[in-house]
């Protein structure tokens, strides 16, 4: 069984982004870029499935600018066998990415597709579910445990108030939540090995997908700032303030 994993290049989670002064977007020039943390978990899970013998090949896919190659090399250093870059400088929205991935699913016929549940830049939480719908596959979103069992996969999902377990017929789409696993550190020898692994580049046009954005961003602004409060010297003052000033208890 092949496993296809989608990875996104995003602003590193430690970077605090700044809104551009002309309110057209956030300034991402010269900031550190990394693999979306949930996608790292997705790759790790796919590699573990291969190590357990449940998967035969792990293919990493990224959609975006040429520099996404670095993200794909990282995925291969974690253990993906090969990579595909769908290269474009166009702005890609989740529906477009889902269509690109659907085209690759048709071509590669994976048994399982794993994605991160959400990208930490646009915070959309859409691509996995959209891919599942377009490819007419069942989905296991927000997964914290994945067990492949013959022609089905058992997925434990993080839901409001607890956990839920579903069984999905393969092929299926899974999106990774935080507790699915802890991704391994990539080692230097594996980074060197990853450089020799195959990386194919295609374009949206090759896949016959129109990626034109459907949503227009009119304005990006700073959120309202919270005024700094005060420090209180002790618990008694705190309780007094909460009772008599803020009146919340």
């Amino acid at each position: 069984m092949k496993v296809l994993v989608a990875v996104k290049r995003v602003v590193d989670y430690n970077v605090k982004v700044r809104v551009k002064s002309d309110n057209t977007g956030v300034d991402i020039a010269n900031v550190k870029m990394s693999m979306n943390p949930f996608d790292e978990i997705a790759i790790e899970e796919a590699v573990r499935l291969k190590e357990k013998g449940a998967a035969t090949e792990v293919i990493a896919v990224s959609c975006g600018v040429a520099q996404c190659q670095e993200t794909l090399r990282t995925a291969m250093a974690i253990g993906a066998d090969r990579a595909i870059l769908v290269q474009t400088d166009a702005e890609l929205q989740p529906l477009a990415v889902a269509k690109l991935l659907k085209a690759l699913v048709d071509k590669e016929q994976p048994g399982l597709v794993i994605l991160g549940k959400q990208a930490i830049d646009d915070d959309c939480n859409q691509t996995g579910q959209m891919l599942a719908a377009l490819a007419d596959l069942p989905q296991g979103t927000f997964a914290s445990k994945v067990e492949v069992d013959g022609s089905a996969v058992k997925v434990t999902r993080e839901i409001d108030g607890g956990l839920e377990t579903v069984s999905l017929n393969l092929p299926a789409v899974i999106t990774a939540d935080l507790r699915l696993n802890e991704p391994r550190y990539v080692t230097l020898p594996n980074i060197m090995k990853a450089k020799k692994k195959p990386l194919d580049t295609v374009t949206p046009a090759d896949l016959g997908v129109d990626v034109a954005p459907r949503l227009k961003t009119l304005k990006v602004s700073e959120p309202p700032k919270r005024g700094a409060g005060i420090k209180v010297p002790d618990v008694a003052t705190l309780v007094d303030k909460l009772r008599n000033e803020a009146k919340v208890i």
Partner: protein
Amino acid sequence: MTSLVIAEHDNASIKGATLNTVTAARACGGDVHVLVAGSGAGAAAAQAAQIAGVAKVIHADGAQFAHGLAENVAAQVLALAGAYSHILFPATAGGKNVAPRVAAKLDVAQISDITKVESADTFERPIYAGNAMAVVQSADATKVITVRTTGFDAAATTGGSAAVESVGAAADSGKSAFLGSEIAKNDRPDLTAAKIVVSGGRALGSAEKFNEVMTPLADKLGAAIGASRAAVDAGYAANDLQVGQTGKIVAPQLYVAAGISGAIQHLAGMKDSKVIVAINKDPEAPIFSVADYGLEADLFTAVPELVKAL
């Protein structure tokens, strides 16, 4: 122009997030209909009909909807979608699971986690963990939206008298099945709806200490318990207690953060709270920059002292 709100419910009753979503739908203009897709969900449908501002309730019943499987619920929404200009889901685990399937099948973009309706086609939503707010305009015929519940007031649970219309249920996809669930049972208020939330961070040091220190405070205040991602990662608290960018978004009247440093992704989940209290022994902790009242102290002494003083 008519909006369809997909109700969050447990078959017996409507969940609170539905009410905020109704308010967002009303802001889009036009009538508001509510879909209750469930199994033996007549009581939930009757309750939805009472919500102020709802013109019609559509009730689809079938065993395939008992556990809200995305494949089946999405099929039901799609069967009705043609009649609507806006389809709105609460941005809960359930809503986020289903909405993108609907959007993709309609070949429209989804607008996630909106915090404001500027006009029928223009919405505000947070990006980068709430460090920026984007105003986006949709050119699509149908707007598929998830609603951040803290951005909208709850509609009144009474005052409405909508008709309930039963419709044929969409068939089971046959591709997924519900096996079971483990839902934590407690008497505490729901984290996203609580008036007071007390959250613990990594400084608690262990699951035992987390319970020992945070539970009495929550009991005393009648509060819901939350946790930082660091505390969840370390196994001190369950994942569904996580407050932050990728966990729950809360905006209670009072938020008490104990031993939480205040990473960007945590602040994203709680900075719209009315009053924020931070208890931390590190004077440089970023949480103090958003706290109305900061107490620089060791939480292991300050929290029990606070419990006694309340």
